[in-house]
C-alpha cells in the first residue's frame, strides 16, 4: 500500500516536472519568436505601384568634419531599371542640420563626359560640415512625368570614424598608454615611464586634432591638455628621480 502511494507520488512528480518543462519550452519559444516574426507594412510603397525614379546612393554614413564631400548617385527608372541622365530630368539636393535648418539647396549636375557610369555628382564644401553631429539630405529628381526622392542621414565626426570598434580601439590605446605609464612609475622603470610619457604627449596632440572618436569640444581639448601635461611631467620626473 505504501509502495503504491510512493509510486503514485513519483508519477505525479514526474508529470508535474514534464508539464513544467513543456511550459518553460513554450515560453522560451514564444519569447524568441518575437524576433522572427516580421509583419509587412500595412500599405505598399506608392512608388512601387506607380513607377517613378529610383535613386541609389553609396551607403556611407560617417564623414570627417570640415572635409569636402563628393556626393554621387545613380538614377534609374523604377519600372524598367534604365539609367536616367539629365536630358529630361533635373536633380536637386537639400542638406539639413540636425535642428532642421536647411544648410544647402542646389541642383546636382550630371557628368556629361562620363556616359558609361551615368553619374550624378556634386562637391559639397567642407564649410557646410563645420559642426559635429547628425545631418541629413534629400535628393529629389523629377522630369515632367516621373519623379523620385531619397533621404539619407549621416554623421559628421572629428576623425571621420564612428562605431563600437573604433571606440573600443581608442579606449584600449588610452588604457594601455596610461597603464604602461603608471606601471613604469610604480616599478620605478625610468625608460618605460619615459617612453609611455612621450606617447601620452603624442596621444594628447592626437586628441586635440581628431577629438575623442565622435566628440571634439572644449572638454576633449581639456582632457588632451591634461594628457600632454601628464606625459611631460612623468617623463621629466622619471629621469630627474633616476639621476
Amino acid at each position, binding site marked *: 500500500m505504501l509502495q503504491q502511494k510512493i509510486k503514485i507520488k513519483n508519477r505525479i512528480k514526474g508529470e508535474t516536472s514534464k508539464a513544467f518543462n513543456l511550459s518553460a519550452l513554450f515560453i522560451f519559444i514564444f519569447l524568441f519568436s518575437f524576433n522572427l516574426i516580421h509583419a509587412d507594412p500595412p500599405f505598399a510603397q506608392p512608388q512601387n505601384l506607380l513607377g517613378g525614379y529610383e535613386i541609389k546612393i553609396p551607403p556611407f554614413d560617417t564623414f570627417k568634419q570640415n572635409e569636402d564631400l563628393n556626393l554621387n548617385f545613380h538614377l534609374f527608372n523604377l519600372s524598367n531599371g534604365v539609367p536616367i541622365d539629365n536630358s529630361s530630368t533635373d536633380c536637386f539636393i537639400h542638406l539639413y542640420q540636425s535642428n532642421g535648418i536647411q544648410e544647402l539647396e542646389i541642383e546636382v549636375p550630371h557628368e556629361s563626359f562620363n556616359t558609361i557610369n551615368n553619374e550624378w555628382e556634386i562637391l559639397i564644401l567642407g564649410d557646410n560640415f563645420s559642426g559635429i553631429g547628425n545631418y541629413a539630405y534629400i535628393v529629389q529628381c523629377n522630369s515632367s512625368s516621373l519623379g523620385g526622392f531619397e533621404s539619407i542621414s549621416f554623421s559628421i565626426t572629428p576623425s571621420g570614424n564612428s562605431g563600437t570598434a573604433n571606440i573600443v580601439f581608442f579606449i584600449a590605446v588610452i588604457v594601455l598608454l596610461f597603464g604602461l605609464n603608471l606601471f613604469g612609475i610604480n616599478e620605478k622603470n625610468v625608460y618605460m615611464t619615459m617612453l609611455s610619457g612621450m606617447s601620452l604627449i603624442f596621444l594628447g596632440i592626437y586628441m586635440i586634432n581628431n577629438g575623442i572618436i565622435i566628440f571634439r569640444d572644449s572638454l576633449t*581639448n581639456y582632457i588632451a591638455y591634461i594628457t600632454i601635461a601628464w606625459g611631460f611631467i612623468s617623463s621629466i620626473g622619471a629621469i630627474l628621480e633616476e*639621476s
Partner: protein
Amino acid sequence: MLGNIIGGFIVILVGVTLAPTVANEVAGAQLNTNITGASSTILGLTTLFYNLSIASTAIGIAAQGLRNSGLM
C-alpha cells in the same frame, strides 16, 4: 650602467624618430579653428616639451655616468 645606456639610447632613438610626427601633429592642431590665442601658443610649445623629454634622457644618462665615476 650598460643597461641604463642601452635603455636611454632606445628612448632617445624612438623619441627623435617620432619628433617630426609630433611637430606635424602640433602644426595641424594649431590650424584647428577651435584653438586660438594663448591655448594655441601653449600648444605650439608641446613640441618643445617633447624634445625636452628626449634631451633630459641624455642629460640623465650623462649625469648618472658622472656620478658613478665620482666626478659629480
